[in-house]
């Protein structure tokens, strides 16, 4: 089994080397970093490396959505509200120009200090937050603007009002809308890609992950609590369900990995933003050649192919 998995991985990697997504000729100055990254990928990440990703993805200084917005988008105009009953601080939406091209951005936002974290519910949106994102994506579809989605959430908010206002239904609706869009869509997990709260805005033509982000169906603590009956076995659980970028790439769940500066994004936010911008731009360029109907058809076909069974 292990060698088969490695073969699959090597095949992916060789394909990856030729992909414009990770740079190709454009990234000539970064071949070294790329090589390091690829080396790390060819070696199965150790349990320690997986746990390091978990810690880095949740690092208190890790750049958040608005840190990237400030560095990547010109003429940023934030859109507020779901036109129903709230303006969810955990979900940021807006219009901006990426290299002169207007895009709609949606993304979770955690919050830097206690006050902002409260206001933004630690990046856990209510149903209203997903409806807010849907409104922004509908605007994008109406005007032909690409959608960039930055995923960074422990998960959707788990509360009484959130349930009453239809958390599950709204996450489904948001995905359904993304499956209908006729504009190019690129999602990137920039920190925690936590379960349903993440996938709600990640049904995109291209799905990327930053090198040290995690993407998972459950938190390591939650998984440990259920399967090991002991939340402190989180490290063991993470090693078992492998939320790191390399494994997500191997499983075909993401299309590419966005490099981070050493040792991780928070060490050099400007450089992290530059690298993210590069990847987003490449992905959008790649999608430019497809019609809206073609994008939609391919997007659905891609997600419908995910899963491994006999």
């Amino acid at each position, binding site marked *: 089994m292990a060698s088969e998995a490695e073969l699959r991985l090597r095949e992916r990697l060789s394909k990856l080397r030729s992909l414009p997504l990770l740079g190709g000729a454009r990234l000539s100055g970064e071949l070294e970093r790329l090589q390091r990254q690829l080396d790390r990928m060819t070696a199965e990440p150790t349990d320690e490396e997986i746990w390091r990703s978990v810690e880095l993805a949740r690092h208190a200084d890790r750049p958040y959505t608005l840190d990237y917005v400030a560095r990547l988008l010109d003429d940023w105009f934030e859109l507020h509200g779901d036109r129903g009953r709230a303006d969810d601080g955990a979900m940021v939406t807006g219009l901006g120009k990426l290299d002169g091209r207007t895009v709609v951005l949606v993304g979770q936002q955690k919050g830097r200090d206690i006050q902002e974290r409260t206001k933004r519910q*630690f990046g856990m949106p209510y149903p209203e937050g997903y409806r807010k994102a849907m409104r922004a994506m509908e605007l994008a579809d109406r005007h032909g603007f690409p959608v960039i989605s930055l995923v960074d959430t422990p*998960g959707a*908010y788990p509360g*009484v009002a959130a349930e009453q206002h239809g958390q599950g239904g709204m996450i489904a609706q948001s995905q359904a809308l993304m*499956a209908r869009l006729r504009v190019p869509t690129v999602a990137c997990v920039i920190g925690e890609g936590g*379960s349903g709260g993440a996938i709600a805005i990640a049904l995109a033509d291209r799905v990327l992950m930053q090198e040290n982000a995690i993407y*998972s169906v459950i*938190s390591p603590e939650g998984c440990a609590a259920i399967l090991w009956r002991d939340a402190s076995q989180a490290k063991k659980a993470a090693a078992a369900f492998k939320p790191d970028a390399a494994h997500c790439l191997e499983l075909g769940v993401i299309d590419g990995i966005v490099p981070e500066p050493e040792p991780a994004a928070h060490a050099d936010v400007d450089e992290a933003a530059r690298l993210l911008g590069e990847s987003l731009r490449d992905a959008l360029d790649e999608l430019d050649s497809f019609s809206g109907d073609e994008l939609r058809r391919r997007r659905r076909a891609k997600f419908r192919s995910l899963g491994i069974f006999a």
Partner: protein
Amino acid sequence: MAEPHIDVSIETKDVPPAPRRDPNTCPSCQSHYRDDELEANLWLCLHCGHHFPMTARARITSLADTGSFVEEAADLRSEDPLNFFDLRPYTERLAEAEMSTGLGEAIVIGQAAVENRSCELAVMDFTFMGGSMGSVVGEKFSRACDSAIERTVPLVTVTSSGGARMQEGILSLMQLPKTVCAVEDLHDAGCALIVVMAHPTTAGVLASFASLGDVSLAEPNALIAFTGPRVVQQTTREKLPDDFGLAEQNLRFGHLDAIVHRQELRPTVARLLRLFDGE
């Protein structure tokens, strides 16, 4: 400065049935039944009407016209892409589930007729690993959509699930967008999706195809929640309303079209099939 590692995963940890309780004892009125007594009465308590869980096979028998059901994709089986091992290997859990339920996975799909109207059925089974959704559940539900599209008939799905199947890691999360895309294809083909939410319909299944029905029905007292009551209580310490997450609350808050007693389910589905038949 730590982030709150709140568990908001799509796997709820508190889905019934409570493990120690005798499955044939009514939790409402404590009446006890033999299997054959319950089977003869749609798994309803003869005394108080409590809705016992139903297996996929029993559900199909109760809904489809006799002899009309033609199962599809029965041979699909889960793999173990992560070599997942917690206290026991995933492969062992799978084998055990198949042994105890006689099912290959937590969902059964196939062609059927209800009161002589053709449809496709996709029925989940909670007894197979808590009705959790892994790659095979996602694939079979998607194939049910395609089968419905091919014959231009409505798809009727009965859901019962604790959420995504952790043991398949991120691939289980991917079954959400996968099934959502399948429903969008179904809708683009002009076919209806009729959802019947049985106890419990939670987490990843609620956050994907179960919430996309043209019509959404639920059985009385079914738990329908993205995050279950225990997790909400633990993480937010909010006081929960008495009927938190139950079908009745969901109806009141606008998430359901109707709560249908099991005895009325077959005629209700038949009526909906007539309505979606167009002319």
